[in-house]
């Protein structure tokens, strides 16, 4: 008997009920896909473009889902890969060379005008990209380090380090912000 939404979606996919599976997956994970996209791209409109595109790709690829991972892990991996591609394309069109020392770091660190509400979310947007995406997944669904590592395609130790350093930075920034 299905116990989680992920199981329900998987059961629908097995029975080739793609429309229902898609509706359920998008209602369950659409917002979090946007959160992840926003954490990578730093621009609400661009993140929505990315997620819209990813949703269509997911619809097309539903029959190819293999049950060796959670549906959400599969969806977030596609979302992340698409956003990183968009980020690369954006960088290719930027007038300043990202190969110049310090420029890439700056581009990864600054997220322009977060359009989401809380002060902590705003602070999260100022962290370097690897910390942002790891923390977004960490808080989105309390994903295990293993799943986050799979989505981000990096070792578990690196994920733990990113989350640790990200939280440390956030605590520091949050403390400073409260003193102002």
């Amino acid at each position, binding site marked *: 008997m299905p116990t989680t939404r992920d199981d329900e979606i998987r059961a629908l996919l097995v029975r080739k009920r793609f429309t229902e599976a898609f509706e359920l997956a998008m209602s369950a994970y*659409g*917002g979090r*896909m946007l959160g992840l996209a926003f954490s990578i791209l730093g621009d609400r409109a661009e993140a*929505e473009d990315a997620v819209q595109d990813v949703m269509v790709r997911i619809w*097309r690829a539903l029959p190819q889902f293999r049950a060796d991972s959670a549906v959400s892990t599969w969806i977030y991996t596609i979302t992340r890969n698409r956003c990183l591609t968009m980020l690369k394309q954006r960088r290719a069109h930027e007038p300043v060379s990202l190969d110049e020392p310090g420029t890439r770091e700056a581009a990864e660190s600054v997220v322009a005008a977060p359009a*989401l509400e*809380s*002060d*902590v979310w705003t602070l999260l947007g100022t962290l370097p990209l690897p910390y942002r995406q790891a923390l977004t997944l960490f808080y989105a669904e309390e994903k295990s380090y293993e799943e986050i590592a799979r989505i981000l395609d990096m070792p578990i130790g690196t994920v733990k380090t990113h989350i640790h350093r990200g939280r440390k930075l956030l*605590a520091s920034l949050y403390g400073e912000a409260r003193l102002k």
Partner: protein
Amino acid sequence: MTPCAAFEDRLIDYADLRPGDRSVIDEHVAGCAACREYLATLREIDTKLTADVRAIQFNPERYAEVRRQTGSMRPVVRTSRLPEWLDFVAACAVCAFGYGLAWQSGVIAYLVSALSASPN
């Protein structure tokens, strides 16, 4: 709000600590205002970010557009090349097995001799 340097990393990883390590931290935090405040800040951040990330909604108008697009296309059921390749191997294996059986039972030898003995 600067925590004790010796405890900062463990306060950040508090949720991942084993019970024994956690009790050491609990003991310290009970007597250290700075670390207590730091741990409270971390928890506040956790609570706020969890709520924020989970509250994000995808724009319904955008989703309607997605459904409009997906309504006109079917999911791509891509057949793998591997099963086709395996089908070919299996067919070859069945043929070889059948030939082997026939050879063993003398059917082949009988057919060859019958054909060679035929006047035509």
